[in-house]
C-alpha cells in the first residue's frame, strides 16, 4: 500500500459516507416532518424525531382537505394501463424490428428512432389544444394514451430480442407448423420476459412520476394523478400546513420506493438499455 492508495481509499470512504447522508437525510426529514406541526418543521433547534410522538394528525388533515385517495387510485389506474399497453405494443414492435425482414424496414426503424428526438415540451401546446378538442379534458384515456408506446421501449426490446430469441428456435417452430402469431405469443413473449420486466418497471416509475401533462389536461382535482396533485398541495401549503404536504409527498412516493428497492437491478438494466428520461 503506497500513500496515494491509502489517501484514495480514505477519501472515497468519506465521500461515500457523505453521499449516503446527503441523499438519505432529506427523505428522513420528509417522513419525520409529516408528523410535525409547522413551527416544529421550521424550528431553529430542530430534532429529528417529532417531539409529540408519531401523531397522524397531518394525515387526517390531508385526507379531509384533498381527495387524496381518489388521486392515488387515479395514479394506479393510469400507471398500470400505460405500463400494460407500453409493454405489449413495444414488445410487438421491438420483436418485429429485431427478427423480421420486410420492405421499408430500415426506413421505418429510422422514423421510430427519430421520434425520440421530438421533445415533448415542444408539442405541449398543440397537443393540449388537440386533446381538448377531442373531449379529453378530465378523462382517463387522455392521461393514458398519449404517453404510451415510447420509441425507447421498442429500442430496448429490440436490443434484447436480437440475441434473446434465437433464429433456430423460430425456424424450428415454423417447421412444426406454428403460425407467426403462435411464435409471437408462445415463443417470443416468454423469451423476452426479462426485458419486458425491465421496461415495465421503468415505465411504471416514469408514468407515476410524470406531472406536466396531467396538470395541463386535468381541471378537476378529483381527476389529477397523485404526483400532479402535489403541486396544488404545495401551493396551498404557503398558508400553513406544511406537515400535510409532507404527508402527501411521503405517501405518494412510497409505492415507487418499495418498487425500486425490490427491483433495483431490473430498473438499472432498463436505464442502461433505454437510457430513461428525466
Amino acid at each position, binding site marked *: 500500500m503506497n500513500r*496515494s492508495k491509502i489517501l484514495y481509499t480514505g477519501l472515497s470512504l468519506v465521500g461515500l459516507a457523505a453521499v449516503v447522508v446527503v441523499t*438519505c437525510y432529506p*427523505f428522513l426529514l420528509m417522513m419525520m*416532518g409529516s408528523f410535525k406541526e409547522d413551527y416544529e418543521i421550521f424550528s431553529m433547534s430542530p430534532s429529528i424525531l417529532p417531539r409529540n410522538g408519531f401523531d397522524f394528525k397531518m394525515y387526517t388533515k390531508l385526507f379531509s382537505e384533498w381527495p387524496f385517495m381518489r388521486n392515488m387510485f387515479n395514479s394506479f389506474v393510469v400507471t398500470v394501463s400505460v405500463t400494460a399497453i407500453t409493454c405489449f405494443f413495444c414488445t410487438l*414492435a421491438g420483436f418485429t424490428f429485431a427478427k423480421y425482414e420486410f420492405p421499408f424496414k430500415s426506413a421505418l426503424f429510422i422514423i421510430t428512432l427519430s421520434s425520440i428526438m421530438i421533445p415533448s415540451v415542444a*408539442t405541449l401546446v398543440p397537443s*393540449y389544444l388537440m386533446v381538448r378538442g377531442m373531449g379529453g379534458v378530465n378523462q382517463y384515456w387522455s392521461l393514458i394514451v398519449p404517453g404510451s408506446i415510447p420509441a425507447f421501449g421498442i429500442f430496448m426490446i429490440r436490443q434484447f430480442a436480437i440475441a434473446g430469441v434465437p433464429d433456430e428456435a423460430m425456424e424450428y417452430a415454423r417447421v412444426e407448423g406454428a403460425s407467426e402469431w403462435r411464435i409471437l405469443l408462445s415463443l417470443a413473449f416468454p423469451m423476452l420476459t426479462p426485458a419486458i420486466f425491465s421496461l415495465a418497471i421503468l415505465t411504471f416509475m416514469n408514468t407515476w412520476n410524470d406531472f406536466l401533462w396531467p396538470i395541463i389536461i386535468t381541471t378537476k382535482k378529483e381527476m389529477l394523478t397523485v404526483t400532479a396533485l402535489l403541486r396544488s398541495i404545495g401551493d396551498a401549503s404557503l398558508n400553513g400546513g406544511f406537515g400535510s404536504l409532507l404527508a402527501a409527498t411521503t405517501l405518494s*412516493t412510497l409505492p415507487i420506493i418499495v418498487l425500486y428497492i425490490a427491483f433495483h437491478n431490473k430498473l438499472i438494466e432498463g436505464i442502461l438499455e433505454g437510457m430513461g428520461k*428525466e
Partner: protein
Amino acid sequence: MESTWREICKKRHCYLWIAPFFVIFAIFSVYPALYGLGISLTNHDGFGTPRFIGFENYVNLFSDSLFWKSLGNTVVLWALIVPARTLLALILASVLNSSKLLGRRVYTIVSLLPYVTAVLVVANVFRMLLATQGGIINVLLSGFGIGPVGWLDTTQMSKISVAVMNIWRMTGYFAIVLLAGMQKISSSVNEAAELDGAGPFRKFLGITIPLMGPEIFFVVLMSSIWVLQNMGDVMVLTKGGPINSSMTLVYYIYKNAFEFSKMGYASAMSYVLFLLLMIISIFSVKGQYSSSKEDKK
C-alpha cells in the same frame, strides 16, 4: 414493383405489429408538431377563433425582454449544473467501480434514490430544506455564524438553489450510466498501469477519463437536453422567481400558454426551443445508438 407488393402482403403481420406505435406517434407527436407550427402563426388565445398574423409572434420574441431573460437564465443554469454534475458523476462512478468496495449494492441503491423520486416530491422537500427561516441548511449555517441566506427568495441565490437541487437529483443517475461504461474498460489496462506504478489518482486522470471520452460526451449532450427542457424543479421550488430570476425558457412557455392564454405566442417559442433541442438531439441520438454500443478494447 410487383414483387415488393407481394413481399409486403406476405409480411403483413410485421406491419400490423409495428402499426400501433406509428398510430400513436402520428396522432400525438407528428400532428401536434405540424399543428403547433400553424398555431404559432396565429393569435390563438385558447378560446376564440384564431386569426392569422404571419410571423408576428416570432418578431415579437426579439423585443420580449422576459424571453431573453429566460433564455439567459437557462444558459446560466446549464453552466451551473452540467459541468459540476458530470464531474461529480464521474468521481462517484469511479469510486463505485473500485474492485474491493464493500457494500457496493447499497451505495448503488442509495445513489439512484433521488432519481426515482418524482421531481415534485423532491422540489417540495427542498422548499423545506432551503427555507430562509428554520430550513435545515440555514440552521446548520447559523452554527458557523452565517446567515440566514435567502436561498429561494433572493435573486442572487435562486438559480444556485435550483442548480443544487438538480445536481442532488441527477448525479446518481449519470454516475450509473458512466459506471456501465467504465466496466467495459478491461481490467488488463488497469493492471498494466498498476505494474508501471500508477496510483489511483493517476489511473483516474490517465486512463478512465480519456477512455471514457464517448460516454462523457454522451452524458454532457443528454444533460444539456434535459436542462433545456427542465421545468419541474423551477415550477415548484421557486416558481421562476423572485422577480423572474429563475424563470427558464420552458417555464416561460408554460406560463404563456396556460396562465396568460397566449397559445400562439407560446407555440412560436416552443418552435425556437424545438430547433435548439433538435440540433443537440441529432448529435446525442447518433452518439447513443451507434458509438456507445461498441465495446472497448
